[in-house]
Every structure is written in structure tokens, then in C-alpha cells.
């Protein structure tokens, strides 16, 4: 089941329109991903922290969100300093740690933490339904929006079906092991899941036809026009552009 712990809140970021937050998050994270110098990425990190602070998110919950990212970063820190060519910082036998490797790892760490924080502050602060609505208003093709919303709606149903199948297998004495029988059983489970998902898709489509579905996306969310929205988007885009251009000039 998909939980949306950050989606409910009263901060001004929560009340902002999805179609403002999505491009703002996109512009900021694109600019952060493109920057090459440490002082600049620190500015982005600062901005992302300010945004998280402005959204009044529970700081501990945000750190918990970052946990999977830290595992990925750990892998980078283990591999890159050892394999990158360049000036050696430390050597022990054939193991050597290089300076460019360390710097690159640090850069990747800052960038990824920054981008995840930006998305947590701006995108995770709306429900998936509002996200779909925002994407629709940004003229993303309806098919893609439906794809997102249907995934969100049915992932719990499919998970439920998977658990039911697995339970049925376990009740009949199935214990997963590293052998062909286990692989085969899991392949059957996966196959069955696809069959059921496809049958369900047909039924859902029928149900949609029964209620007059004609391929159009309707939305119920309304947002009163708010000058602040526009100012926020302009500020974020200008800041990203400014930092990007500034970096080209000064460094």
C-alpha cells in the first residue's frame, strides 16, 4: 500500500497548486543536477532544506525517507574512490583511493540528497491524485496520467492478490529454497499475477465503459487563483537560471 505521510499539511507549500509545484521541482532539480562546483551545490542544498522547512515536514520522517538513498550512496562511496583514475590520496597494497573519486562521490551525494529533498518538499506534499491532476493541467497526455493514477489505485489490489497466491502456496507446504522447484513456483506466481491483472484490466475497462468513459480525464480539484503561486514559480525558475548562469560566468 502506498502511504502518503507528507501529503496532508497546512503549510503554504501544501496549499500551492500542483501545476506550480511540479515545474518548480523540475527546474530546481534539473539545475542542481547540472551544476559542477561545490559552493553552488551547497546553495541548492540550502534551498532544498529551506523548502523542507517551509513545508513543515517532520524532520525525522524526512531522514527516514532518505534511507534507501543512503544505501545507494554507500555503494557509490565503496566503488568510485577505489576505481577512479587520478591523484592518489591513500594507498595500502594494491588498494588505492583517488582524489577525483572522493570528490565525485561527494558531489553525487550532495546532488542526490538535494534532489530528493526538493521532491519531498514539493512533490510529496500532494496526493497522487493531485499529482495526476497537476500533470493533466500541464498538458501531459491523458494516457500517461491515467497510467499513473491506475498504477496508484491498483498496486494495492495486485499486492493483495500476490499475497493471497503466496499464502495459498505456503499453506500447501511451499518453502522457498534455492532450487528449481522454488524458481518455478515463483514463475507461476508471477505468471498468474499477470493473467489476473490483465483480466482485471478488462473488467475495469468494462466498468468504465458502463459509466460513459470516453477517454477524457476529468478532475474535481479546484484551486482559487493565487498570486503567490505565480511568484513562487517565477522565483524558483529565476533562482535556478541565475545560479546556472552565474556558475558559467564565475567558475
Amino acid at each position, binding site marked *: 500500500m502506498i502511504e502518503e505521510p507528507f501529503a496532508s499539511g497546512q503549510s503554504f507549500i501544501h496549499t500551492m497548486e500542483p501545476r506550480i509545484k511540479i515545474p518548480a521541482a523540475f527546474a530546481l532539480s534539473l539545475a542542481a543536477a547540472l551544476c559542477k562546483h561545490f559552493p553552488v551545490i551547497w546553495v541548492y542544498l540550502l534551498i532544498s532544506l529551506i523548502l523542507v522547512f517551509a513545508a513543515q515536514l517532520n524532520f525525522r520522517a524526512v531522514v527516514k525517507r532518505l534511507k534507501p538513498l543512503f544505501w545507494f550512496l554507500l555503494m557509490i562511496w565503496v566503488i568510485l574512490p577505489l576505481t577512479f583514475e587520478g591523484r592518489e590520496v591513500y594507498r595500502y597494497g594494491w588498494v588505492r583511493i583517488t582524489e577525483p573519486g572522493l570528490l565525485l562521490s561527494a558531489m553525487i551525494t550532495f546532488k542526490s540528497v538535494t534532489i530528493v529533498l526538493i521532491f519531498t518538499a514539493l512533490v510529496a506534499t500532494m496526493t497522487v491524485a493531485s499529482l495526476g491532476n497537476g500533470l493533466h493541467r500541464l498538458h501531459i497526455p491523458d494516457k500517461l496520467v491515467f497510467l499513473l493514477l*491506475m498504477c496508484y489505485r491498483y498496486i494495492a*489490489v495486485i499486492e493483495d492478490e500476490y499475497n493471497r497466491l503466496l499464502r495459498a502456496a505456503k499453506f500447501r507446504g511451499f518453502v522457498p529454497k534455492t532450487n528449481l522447484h522454488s524458481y518455478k513456483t515463483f514463475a507461476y506466481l508471477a505468471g498468474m499475477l499477470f493473467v489476473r491483472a490483465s483480466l482485471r484490466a478488462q473488467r475495469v475497462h468494462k*466498468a468504465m465503459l458502463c459509466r460513459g468513459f470516453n477517454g477524457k480525464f*476529468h478532475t474535481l480539484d479546484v484551486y482559487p487563483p493565487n498570486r503567490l503561486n505565480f511568484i513562487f514559480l517565477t522565483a524558483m525558475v529565476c533562482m535556478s537560471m541565475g545560479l546556472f548562469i552565474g556558475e558559467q560566468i564565475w567558475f
Partner: protein
Amino acid sequence: MADNTCIIRLEDISYAYPGTGAKVLDHLNLEIFQGDRIGMIAPNGTGKTTLLHTIMGLCKPDGGTITIFGNTLKQEKDFLPVRSKIGLLFQDSDDQLFCPTVMEDVAFGPLNLGFSRDEAVDMAKKTLEGLGMGAFEQSITHRLSGGQKRLVALAAVLAMNPRVLLLDEPTAGLDNTVKERLIRILNHLDISYLVISHEFDFVSAVTDKIYSMENGRILTDADIQIHHHEHVHKHGLHPHTYK
């Protein structure tokens, strides 16, 4: 009760699943009149669901004619205007509720019918409140319980103001409280309906006549006599302790 306007008439309908020769519906005839409240009790696999899907134009019959509200329907586009006038409640509510929130789901039908956003929200609100589900407007659909899902699905169907309801096993997987609620709701509705169910008590509580199906055809009141048996045990003081 029933006046003599025939709203749904099926004549000589035959249907076989593609790839199999076995006929699910075999020269079937059925008439539903304005004000009819028909129950249908039949074993699994007799084609009850197929019958409902044929009425909605979701299954194309191999032969026969479908006349709904006086018009003979042949192609997909003939069925489009009819679908909003017939409400089909699916067996599995998860098939029917596909929007993220309850409100969006119930308003989906009215929006497709061309109502404005405010009108659709208003209709959805009224329907939900009518079913006692007003408190669930903003709930996330997939987090509802089975009974709540069924009632929301019914609201979604009723929000389109159908002239006739087709209910496919509405009580499947529900506990008694929800069943009783459903009985009250159906008995207060002012539209015709056809209920498919396995539960005799439920069907007899909400309908005026009971049909059955056999060999791809419908058996009407005259052909069937569904009845209960009383019985005696010698299993001590509490023979049915599981009840």
C-alpha cells in the same frame, strides 16, 4: 406494481465464449418492465454475468436482438447512450472503483454525462448521503473496507440516475449488517432492478419475482419453485453452534 412499458427486451440471444463451442446463452428470452424487481438465483457458470454484460453491450451476442427503451441496439455506438440509463453493479467493487478518492469516483459518471464540475460534485454528494456514506467523500478508495466499497460502487452507479439497475451478486463477501443496509436501500429505491444472487433470503427480501437460469435459458416463476427445507438433527442441544 409493474406497468406495461417494456424497458429491456432480449429475444433469441445466443452467446458462446470465443474459442469454445459451448453456448452460455442459448436462444434466451427476457423482458424487464418498468417497476419490475426481479431476482435471479442460478448455479455458478450458468451465464448470469454474461447475461448482464450482454444487456450492457459489453459482450456481443452471436444472434438475437436486444431492445432497450424501444430501440434495437446492434453496434457499440448504439449502446453508448443506453449505458448511462442502466446501472450495472459489478461483482467485485475493486473493478468498479478506479479513481483515487471516493468523491472522484462517484462524480466520474456525471462528469462523463457532461455535467459541470459543481453539478457533478453536488450529485455525488447527494447520492453518497442518500446511502449514508456522506462521511467517506474524501476517503481514499483502496483503503475502504469491502462493505464500504460496495456501497460506494452502488453510489457511483446511482449517481448517473439510471432507469434500471443490474446487480451482480451484490452481497458477495458482505457481512449481515451491510446486507441488511443493502436490503433497506434497495427497498427504498424507486427504479426497476434485476438482482443476481446466491442468497435466497436476500433475493426474497428485495424482489417481487424470482427467475432462474438453466442451459443458457431463463426459467420464470412458473417453471421454478425455489423453497427452503426444514430439517431435524440428532446432534444434541446445540446442533448449529457455528451460527
